[in-house]
């Protein structure tokens, strides 16, 4: 991997740790914005994971006397039309958005590896057939196929993860396929085959380590889009269930209905979404620049 340079200290320190530490030091030095974004995401993940402890109120708790109230000391961002605390709902929303986003993207990368990896490695008729399916799937505008499939499966968190993950993975498989085909043309791969290295060993030792950076890149540049897709579907009423405090759902429900009385109900969830996606994109770009030497210096 390109991030390892011949540092003499590598022999003294445990190798894996020095690699990782070195990577993050390099990131902080070369990509300050990406690093800050990474920290913001980490904070959001913590807020989401600990929403039960951190949120001032449960997201479903109604305080009808305080409905549509503005920000106050007891409700920092005010209340929605049922008197629920907006800040608490946003914090639980972070759990939903990031949870669905990260889970779906993980699935996305696995599906991409299964389809793209086999297609690129086996090649031939299998590849040709597989690519027709991939082409047909990609020909659909993303949102239309997601809407269609979501109305088949119905609203729900597991459905959302499966649909976004599988559908994204089919698209992402092309990158993995390209990478695997590239690896197969390298001398080290040919040499391994020539000395009679068995297929599983070749895959483990030569293909996987070289596909890894591509997988990390796909992961980091996809999360933002996946979260955006979830929010769009929830906004249109085909995503997460109505009773969950998803940011997209909050925008279409109370945000839209009470937009003249309490515009912050529409402002806040969108702001949370924008900040999250912005940081994920910045962090993803930084990861890509650091991991893919060909793109480095292009000054994206």
């Amino acid at each position, binding site marked *: 991997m390109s991030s390892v340079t011949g540092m003499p200290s590598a022999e003294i320190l445990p190798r894996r740790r020095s690699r990782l530490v070195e990577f993050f030091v390099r990131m902080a030095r070369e990509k300050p914005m990406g690093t800050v974004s990474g920290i913001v995401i980490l904070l959001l993940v913590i807020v989401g994971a600990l929403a039960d402890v951190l949120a001032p109120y449960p997201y479903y708790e109604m305080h009808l006397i305080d409905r549509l109230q503005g920000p106050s000391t007891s409700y920092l961002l005010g209340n929605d039309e049922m008197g629920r605390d907006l800040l608490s709902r946003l914090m639980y929303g972070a759990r939903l958005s990031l949870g669905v986003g990260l889970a779906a993207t993980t699935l996305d990368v696995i599906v991409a590896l299964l389809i793209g990896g086999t297609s690129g490695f086996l090649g031939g008729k299998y590849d040709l057939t597989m690519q027709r399916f991939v*082409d047909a*799937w990609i*020909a659909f*505008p993303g*949102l239309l196929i997601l809407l269609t499939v979501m109305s088949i499966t119905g609203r729900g968190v597991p459905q959302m993860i499966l649909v976004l993950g599988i559908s994204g993975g089919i698209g992402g498989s092309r990158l993995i396929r390209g990478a695997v085909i590239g690896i197969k043309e390298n001398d080290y791969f040919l040499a391994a085959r020539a000395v009679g290295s068995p297929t599983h060993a070749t895959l483990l030792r030569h293909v996987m380590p070289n596909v890894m950076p591509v997988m990390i890149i796909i992961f980091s540049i996809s999360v933002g889009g996946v979260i955006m897709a979830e*929010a769009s579907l929830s906004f249109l009423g*085909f995503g997460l269930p109505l009773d969950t405090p998803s940011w997209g759902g909050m*925008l279409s429900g109370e945000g839209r209905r009470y937009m003249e009385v309490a515009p912050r109900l529409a402002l806040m969830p969108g702001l949370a979404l924008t900040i999250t*996606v912005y940081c994920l994109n910045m962090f993803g770009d930084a990861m890509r620049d650091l991991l893919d030497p060909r793109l480095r210096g292009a*000054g994206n």
Partner: protein
Amino acid sequence: MTTYVIRRLLLAVPTLFILTVLVFMLVRFLPGNVIDMMESDLEALDWQLDREGFLRLMGLDVPFYVQYARWMGGIFLHGTLGDSLFAGHTVEEKILAALPVTVQLGAMSFVLAQLIALPVGIFSAIRQDTPADYVARTIAIIGMATPNFWLALMVMIYPTIWWGWAPPIEYIPFTENPLGSIGMLIIPSVIVGTAMSAGTMRLTRTMMLEVLRQDYVRTARSKGLKERVVIYRHSVKNALIPVITLVGAQLPILVGGSVIIENIFVLPGLGRLFVDALAQRDYPIISGINLFFGTVILLNNLFIDLLYPFVDPRVRYR
């Protein structure tokens, strides 16, 4: 070159076939068919529905492969996508009625996106690492992260609160009043267009930077050519080659954007028709629109691939 074109065209045929099967199969999995929906409507009136009769009338009483064969037969032999399950229109009538809105919205957004992306991208590269460059890039990245449905809501909410002005939502057909129609769609188009422009702007900038470092650009400069000629004749032309691919590949984003925007701004386009049809389980409409967009995008992708060697003579295919 010719073999490549033929190969690509031949490969598109099975893809198109798989597309039609996918489109057709997907809607058959939708839970609760249209009869259930009608029955629950009629229950209130205490009416009984002749299930069998209705299924036969709608052609839903035969196995799905027969339904598929009928559907394909209808397309190829009679040039029809079937009837909508509601209101006695054919699918193509409904699609054609909604198409102008979506096409106009798409075209306007597309033009706006390129008008923003290309000049800003080129300028940003020429003035690399200046404050102007940073501002342009920051706005582009923020633009990419901003959900267009949220932006649309903000445009509807805040001008109303601040100035008592709301964007017009009554659609004016282009044929009746071209200027009024463009004026009415300008806000939705700006929202879809800016979202699209961010990616193009970034790629334009990256490609410009790469081209500006090439030997032929240095040669052009050392020949004493004017900077304007170097930029436009030597750099922009080469930098835009990959941009064409990206712009072409953005058609799905345009479609997705119009689905959301049409639903917020209550525009009677294909995106509205699609979401309404999903809610009503109107299979033929859903399949029809999916097939329409799928085919358009497939042909679009094919066209871009085939266009590439003409735009860039250095590219040679098997």
